[in-house]
């Protein structure tokens, strides 16, 4: 079968201009041309003939991939990797410099919810306007109108100008219009990062329906790995404008997450004497003291933080923030729980954090370690340290098949059962 999207050799070049600001004024151009007509002509001529090269920057280079009908493809990568540029090219907002893309079917792009919403117009009017901007016909919008209103839950405020809406209502209405686009291909950029958790879930569910039931094709950019994992079968990892990896979502996400720090259990950081203090080393240690990032679920382990204090720091605290998958903060804990925080004299320190067994369920986690004076100064922070909890030696896996209802928290609860009759 022919792929629904075929991307061949796409590249996008931007010229970096060294002018002040993002635009130049006509006045300046005219003044320069009149003051120094010869130099102006010379520079122009050079630019035209290509003798003088402007500084160039390839936001995307040699992008190749194809997508089949009904697939949901995730696009991940660091900020500036070219994700949004790729989506902008796919949605024809900006043309590529090289290459070719062939797409079959109606294309809808959702780079932002509520594009073109006008605060003075009512909810009803904005539904029609926004729908039209997103490429729906008036007939389509009219036939979907009731569903849109119901999904957004704004029936009572339909004839109120949206400037009086709460931000939650606004976002709900905006997403709802977008969610009812009947396009064969949907290009979506991080729009789920809006609204409250409840609504985000509803949106994600809606997007799942769209691909699974209606057989539509979705390209989905997100920083939320959980959402990508839930929705997308395949994922593309972009790095510095090129495709770094493309394949099954789980593989690509694992690769991406590991790539931040590798799977090193002992991480060394530069000592920066300019700062009041630096975190020098973070180690993940198994119960027997051997460093490892693979921790069996039923074993306790330790996180050891070595840091140096250069100048005395007052009333400070060491914190750990533990994240699962994407952005879900699972746990935050500090070295001091009471109000009496500790003052640190210059010198080297070592802190050991005891992590109990059966705290985390199977899966991959990240944590940040920060040294801070609460409410005022962040002395130092190290982010995205990788950790994996494995099934090894888990008594539970002898009862159940692997992966059976593994929660993010794996505390063993005490069940007390009495026979009462």
């Amino acid at each position, binding site marked *: 079968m022919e792929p629904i999207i075929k991307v061949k050799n796409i590249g996008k070049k*931007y010229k970096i201009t060294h002018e002040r600001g*993002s*635009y*130049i*004024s*006509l*006045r300046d*151009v005219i003044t320069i041309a009149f003051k120094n007509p010869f130099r102006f002509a010379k520079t122009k001529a050079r630019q035209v003939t290509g003798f003088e090269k402007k500084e160039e920057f390839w936001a995307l280079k040699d992008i190749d991939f194809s997508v089949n009908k009904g697939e949901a493809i995730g696009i991940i990568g660091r900020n500036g990797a070219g994700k949004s540029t790729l989506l*902008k*090219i*796919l*949605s*024809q*907002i*900006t*043309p*590529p*410099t*090289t*290459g*070719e*893309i*062939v*797409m*079959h*079917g*109606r*294309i809808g*792009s959702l*780079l*932002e919810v509520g*594009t*073109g919403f*006008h605060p*003075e*117009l009512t909810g009803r*009017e904005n539904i*029609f*306007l926004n729908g*039209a*901007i*997103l*490429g729906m*016909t*008036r007939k389509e919008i009219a036939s979907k109108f009731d569903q849109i209103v119901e999904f957004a839950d704004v029936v009572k405020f339909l004839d109120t100008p949206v400037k009086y809406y709460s931000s939650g209502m606004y976002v709900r209405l905006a997403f709802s219009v977008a969610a009812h686009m009947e396009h*064969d291909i949907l290009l979506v950029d991080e729009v789920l990062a809006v609204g409250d958790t409840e609504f985000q879930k509803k949106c994600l569910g809606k997007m799942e329906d769209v691909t699974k039931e209606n057989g539509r094709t979705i390209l989905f950019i997100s920083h939320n790995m959980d959402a990508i994992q839930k929705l997308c079968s395949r994922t593309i990892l972009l790095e510095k404008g090129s495709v770094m990896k493309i394949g099954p979502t789980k593989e690509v996400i694992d690769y991406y997450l590991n790539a931040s720090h590798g799977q090193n259990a002992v991480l060394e950081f530069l000592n920066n004497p300019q700062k009041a203090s630096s975190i020098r080393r973070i180690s993940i240690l198994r119960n027997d003291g051997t460093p490892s990032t693979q921790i069996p679920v039923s074993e306790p382990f330790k996180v050891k933080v070595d840091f140096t204090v250069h100048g005395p720091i007052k009333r400070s605290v060491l914190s750990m923030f533990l994240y699962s998958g994407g952005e879900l903060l699972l746990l935050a804990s500090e070295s001091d729980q009471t109000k009496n925080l500790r003052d640190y004299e210059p010198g080297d320190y070592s802190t050991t954090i005891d992590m109990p067994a059966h705290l985390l369920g199977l899966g991959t986690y990240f944590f940040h370690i920060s040294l801070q004076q609460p409410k005022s100064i962040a002395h130092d922070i190290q982010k995205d340290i990788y950790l994996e909890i494995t099934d090894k030696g888990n008594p539970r896996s002898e009862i159940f098949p692997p992966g059976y209802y593994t929660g993010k928290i794996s505390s063993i609860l005490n069940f007390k059962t009495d026979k009462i009759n």
Partner: protein
Amino acid sequence: MGITTVIRPKKTFSWNDIREIWQYRELLYFFTWRDLKIRYKQTTIGVLWAIIQPVSTMVVFSVFFGSLAKMPSDGIPYPIFVYTGLLFWQFFSAALSQTSSSLISNAAIITKVYFPRIILPVSGVITQFVDFFIASIVLIALMFYYGYVPHLSGLLILPLLLIITFLASVGGGLFLASINVKYRDVKYALPFVIQILMFITPVIYPASIAGKYSWLLAINPMTGVIKGARGALLGTEPINWALLLISFTAVFILFSIGFYYFKKTERYFADIV
């Protein structure tokens, strides 16, 4: 399905662009609808605004140029003479200034959604049509008051005059809109340029005062339009077809330049707007 989109590094123009504008005609309608809705919603006097503006200008001009300065008006009462000119002139000038900012003020949409960009300036001009029609009610009233009956042939020529004005506004607007994206000081220069343009267009004076050089004025397409309108509605002179042809040619050239420049720069709008 059935639709295939091919994205390539952009050429300046292809015939597909024309077909595409037709496909997006509903969006054109919605942008126009939005602009009208907002304009008349935000002002308490709403629709009346479209009348107040030309009428008050007409009154001021009649007092100063007509009564005090005794400006010649080809033997027609000055109020109706100047109002005919103002009607077309204000359509043109308002359309020009509205279109020139149409891309900038819709930057949020341009950078997020694809549609043929030309829709925005075109809808800016269409919006002005509505004001034009509202304001022309006053002209009809004035014609009744002063007892002018237009010739039938004169009425038939009005659509042609409107087409010329429309093309002149779109052509100039497209050009201004695209340079405005790149050079943001255009919007400061424009009101001043429009002011000057008004004085080289026979709005407040008859073209006849230019004597034998009046053909020079004809290069300005609005000269042909305003002269034509006065001839048709007030019977000042027979329709000067040669003059209209010059106007039409000038407008065609203006439109071509505007359209070409717009298409040439269109691809960068989303990157620099």
